[in-house]
């Protein structure tokens, strides 16, 4: 085994460069969104852009730390990190402070706070990679599948108990990892079908939906009438689907909290609540739309700066990008994100160790889910769910955890030649 000369050798500079791009875009746009005439300096620590700069500095320290550590460190200690993260989530439920109806923050002081669920995403990814990466583990085994699902579901449930529904949904993104590692492709189709059914059932009378599905079923049964075994299987699936449709209203009425219902209603266009949740989306669309092709220019945005768009530094940061940089700017950010994700998949596929590959897929899935929901909601294509845009949104917890998530992967990649 050859010891690398420097911790920077063998790094995938494409990923590092793109990472730096996102960090810069985020910082500049937070500056633009929160720009305050009295505090013009971008590193003024009393302002959010100054604080973000501080988080960036801390990120660099964390990056160095990750790169110095032995590449095997995270694989080796993955279970410890996972248990620690779960404990942290439990602790938050017990002593966390309630902010906007959810109990997901731990305050160390009035200004220093941490959201343990960010750590949980990282830990879950580590353990999932460690578990599935074991040579002896085969995903075709039903017990393995259940264990894998349990690894994901445990933190997801705790996050749900903290009333962070949006972040809970993030854990669903691991479905891509399971798919890549051999779970039937039907799972993707099935998941997608459930979402479509859910939306249709809320929009249209459920009896009409059932009628359509029954019609489709009758035709299909007619087509496959020769195979009795298929028909039985098919009838079971049909029963499950109808059951799901009838439970949708139940879920909607009884499981979802009023604010979640409202989000869904606004998203589906059933209610126009321009002052509440619909207000955010409407404002956000106006802001992005007003950017036009080339945007209003740096610091010239009016919609976001005048605080018409709420939470414009955090969840709605994409609005500022859209308004000040126009279609060109927002398009570049979207393209950069998809290139970034594809690069991660590419790098993941060149790994020798299963751990690194699976970890890479988990990383890409998490990032993809965040980007899809976050940008989707600002342009009115997804319900308003409070999750950040990775590397770009204001906030220490998410920046630091995504940075660590990414650089653990980069470190694995840098060491890939040493894996036998």
């Amino acid at each position: 085994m050859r010891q690398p000369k420097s911790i920077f050798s063998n790094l995938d500079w494409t990923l590092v460069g793109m990472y730096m791009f996102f960090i810069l875009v985020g910082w500049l746009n937070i500056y633009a969104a929160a720009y305050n005439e009295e505090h013009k300096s971008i590193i003024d620590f009393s302002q959010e852009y100054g604080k973000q700069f501080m988080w960036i500095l801390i990120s660099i320290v964390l990056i160095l730390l990750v790169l110095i550590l032995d590449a095997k460190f995270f694989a080796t200690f993955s279970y410890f990190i996972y248990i620690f993260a779960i404990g942290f989530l439990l602790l938050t439920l017990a002593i966390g402070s309630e902010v906007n109806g959810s109990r997901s923050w731990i305050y160390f002081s009035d200004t220093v706070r941490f959201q343990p669920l960010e750590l949980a995403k990282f830990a879950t990814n580590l353990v999932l990679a460690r578990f599935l990466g074991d040579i002896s583990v085969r995903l075709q085994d039903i017990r393995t599948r259940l264990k894998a699902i349990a690894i994901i579901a445990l933190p997801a449930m705790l996050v749900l108990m903290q009333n962070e529904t949006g972040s809970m949904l993030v854990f669903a993104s691991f479905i891509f990892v399971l798919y890549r590692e051999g779970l039937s492709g039907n799972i993707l189709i099935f998941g997608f079908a459930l979402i479509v059914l859910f939306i249709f059932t809320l929009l249209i009378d459920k009896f009409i939906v059932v009628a359509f599905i029954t019609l489709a079923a009758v035709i299909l049964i007619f087509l496959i009438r020769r195979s009795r075994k298929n028909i039985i299987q098919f009838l079971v699936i049909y029963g499950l689907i109808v059951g799901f449709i009838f439970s949708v209203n139940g879920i909607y009425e009884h499981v979802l909290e009023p604010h979640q219902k409202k989000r869904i209603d606004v998203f589906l266009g059933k209610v126009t609540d321009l002052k509440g949740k619909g207000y955010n989306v409407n404002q956000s669309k106006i802001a992005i739309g007003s950017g036009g092709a080339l945007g209003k220019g740096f610091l010239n945005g009016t919609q976001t700066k005048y605080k018409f768009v709420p939470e414009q530094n955090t969840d709605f940061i994409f609005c500022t990008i859209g308004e000040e940089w126009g279609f060109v700017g927002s398009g570049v950010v979207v393209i950069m994100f998809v290139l970034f994700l594809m690069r991660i998949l590419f790098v993941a596929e060149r790994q020798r160790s299963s751990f690194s590959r699976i970890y890479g897929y988990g990383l890409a899935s998490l990032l993809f889910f965040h980007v899809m929901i976050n940008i989707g909601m600002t342009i009115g294509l997804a319900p308003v769910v409070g999750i950040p845009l990775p590397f770009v949104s204001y906030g220490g917890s998410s920046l630091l955890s995504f940075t660590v998530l990414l650089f653990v992967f980069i470190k694995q990649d840098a060491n890939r030649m040493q894996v036998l």
Partner: protein
Amino acid sequence: MSANKSFTSRRYVINTIFLVIALVFIIRLFFLQIIDKTNKSSADNNVFRYLTEFPARGLVYDCNGKPLLYNEATYDLMVIPHQMGKTFDTLGFCKLINTDILTFRKKIKLATVYSNFLPTIYDEKIPKEQYGMLQERLSEYPGFYIQARTIRNYPQPYCAQILGYIGETTPEMLETDEYYKPGDYIGISGLEKSYEKELRGKKGIRIIMVDVHNRDMGSYMNGKFDVEAKPGQDLHTYLDADLQEYAEKLLQNKRGSVVALDPRTGGIIAIASSPSYDPNLLVGRERTKNYFDLLSDKNLPLFNRALSGRYPPGSTFKPIVGLIGLQEGVLNTTITYPCYGGFPLGNGKMIKCHSHGSPLALLGAIQTSCNAYFCKVLKTTIENKQYPSTEAGFNAWRNFVLSFGLGNPLGVDLPNESGGNIPTSKYYDRYFGRGHWRALSVISIAIGQGEILLTPLQMANVAAIIANRGYFYTPHIVKAIGTISNLNKKYLTKRYTKVNPEYFNYIVKGMLGVVEGGTAHNVRMDSIKVCGKTGTVQNAGKNHSVFIAFAPMDNPQIAIAAVVENSGYGATWAAPVASLMIEKYLTHKVKRLDLEKDIMDSKLIIKSE
């Protein structure tokens, strides 16, 4: 390489999903930013302004459809500090609105503290004359504009405490309900408070675009994103505005209250507390000063005595003592008790009584309000052998009393209702020591003194219970909200007392006797058979005068209670007030003009006191 090699082709599926989503986003962005010109047209110099459309607040009507209040348009001067810009003509503006620069700067600073970017009320309720002039010249002053809203206006100076008033939301209210924004109005008391959600309606938003010169450039996307305001719902009440006015006039220059109920529905026909105030005082620019004047008035005009005042009921409590005695079987209509000028307490002291024929049975005892008789009844009820102890006997007795709607708030649809007080055996245990008290120790409650406290509303409700011979509907003031009479179920449910309805007829007869030839014969009328009971309540100052009544005896239409504080005998003050109210309500014309003039003109307090 791992065994998963066979799945490597799946990377393309995942890559494709990523690409498809990205493509959808790009197309959507293209549509929003390039195709859809409506967003872009407002981009460069135009800024949106969000005008809150305040819906008209619901009105309140009396039982004859007469409005008790109106809405009136008023104009607020709003400011959005950041829009003022660097070249704002401060001097000119101060001249325009007639203020000095210092005040102006202070106000702007305050507004900035709330938000640099959201509208704040700079000045409210601009007089109509100033409004026209401002509207014309305001475009020279960016950041300022005028917003209309409606305020209350009262045709007559009555019903102040029932209607209540509205006021600006406090920071605490803003935190508990996100509907309200700073400067919004909310019901603070009375019906305005208890029916706030129904009355307020729902605010709307109108989005207009303004250019840098603060000029209105029209509505945004033809109002596509505007939200229409939903007007508030009207309240239809049981109140009889004429009777209410009459009640307030009878009580003028006195401290006291009158509550009149329709025993058939529990509807409140009139509910007056004196001294009151002109509701118009709490609207308009002077309202803060007026409010503090009212607040510091030691006769407490803002305090609704009818709901929140707690008084010993005095002798008006005796019918209940009698009813419980009958129910418990320790009393019948033939038992007589002698009265030698009072009820001896055994230690040389006695509960005194006035002179009257003796011995008396139930009917006579009610008619003459004999103290000794009811002390005896209470003693036999509490020390009934069927209970193991005085304590148990008292607890049983107390449960009967509670079933008359006493000891707890009745649940009227007005805020700040008190529950009065019916002492518990625990209270006496603490006071005398456990097992160290007997019926004689607490005997003053038999004549409605001691720790027993009722609100005038509860007293009127007791009259309603006796009128109904044993049940009541929870008193309430609102008959219908908007066009539908969607009353709360609790106002439509009969509540029975624990006393058998058959016993009530004895009490009714006794109460008829009170007015026909008993303690309240001075308010007898030929035309109407009134059943009543006087009360003269001892307290630290001069006696409170109390009277409860209902009429007519058969098929009662009104049950009433009157309290006149520190005035004298029940028959002297409260009985005439209640009797005149009954006459007015049932005949619409008062014939006893001398009595009416006498009561109205009497001044027991001086206004400026």
